[in-house]
């Protein structure tokens, strides 16, 4: 499976910026402490916007208990917008501290230069690069500037 890495997003994101999550409902399971946002969830950090139907919060655990959020698992028509570029997929995993978003499941990456589809897309927000792998297919907009 070939993999292509291209620029993604105009500005390099800073992973220590506050993350804002808005949704219709939040379901906190008291038995295992897991938290799930349901109903057009939007995650915003700096210029990055990730929207999905359902987002599960995975905590950072240490012996004293939960200390923070390790990553967010979004499922259900996920759309990641970062500056001029946008990517769509079925599932996405956003690890906050490292600032990487792993999108899987018929990924469609649309940029001004053209659109690419693949099975998997790894976006590194801190360096502003994205690498696609698995059945990468590019559709070049013929004739556009």
């Amino acid at each position, binding site marked *: 499976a070939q993999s292509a890495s291209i620029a993604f997003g105009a500005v390099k994101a800073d992973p220590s910026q506050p993350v804002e999550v*808005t949704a*219709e*409902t*939040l379901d906190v399971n*008291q*038995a295992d402490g897991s938290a799930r946002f349901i109903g057009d969830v939007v995650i915003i950090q700096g210029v990055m916007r990730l929207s999905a139907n359902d987002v599960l919060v995975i905590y950072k655990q240490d012996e004293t208990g939960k200390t*923070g959020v390790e990553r967010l698992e979004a499922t259900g028509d996920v759309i990641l917008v970062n500056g001029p570029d946008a990517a769509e997929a079925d599932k996405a995993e956003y690890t906050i501290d490292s600032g990487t978003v792993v999108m899987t499941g018929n990924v469609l990456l649309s940029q001004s230069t053209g659109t690419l589809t693949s099975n998997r897309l790894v976006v590194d927000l801190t360096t502003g690069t994205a690498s696609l792998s698995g059945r990468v297919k590019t559709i070049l907009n013929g004739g556009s500037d």
Partner: protein
Amino acid sequence: MDGYSRLVAYLKVLLPLMALALMSTMFLISRGVNTDAVIPFAEQDLEDRTRGQQITAPFFSGTTAQGDEIMVTAALARPGGADAPATAVNLEAEIKMTGGGRFLLSSDTGALRPDKDMANFRGDVEILSSDGLRVTTQELNAALNGVRADSPGPVQASGAMGDLTAGAMQIDTKTDSGAVHMVFNKGVKLLYDPQQSER
């Protein structure tokens, strides 16, 4: 009889007399002991107590069908009339769930309606859940016969995942023997600050 034995004879009489004089003056001069102890009650207290009946530090506890324990205590409770429910001040409640996990609820005032198995918390209601989530709201209705509570009004919460605000909140067990869920709805907005968790 020489001088020495005359001196001893005089002392044998004089010293006991001095001792007697000392002993008697000790009781005459000492300050009197006031025997009537003053009971520390302020007038206001007496008026409060006589105006209506009240129970100090009432304690209500029960277990649900699934075995969760619910304990409600208060600083002070006044019995309600036919229409008004019993009201309580500084209400605190603890719900221990069979599946592990605990809720600590506290509020300024509240009303207890055992006939409808309901406890109503009002005024700076605070809910601490065992996984470290601290929820504050203005009003919460908690069921006494099961782990169910709902806060109709806006809610704020803070925990490991950051600070969030929501329009309403319900605590419920989805499946009958399943885990207890705390559901925030009517628009949830969470703010998580990665730096905060680094420290």
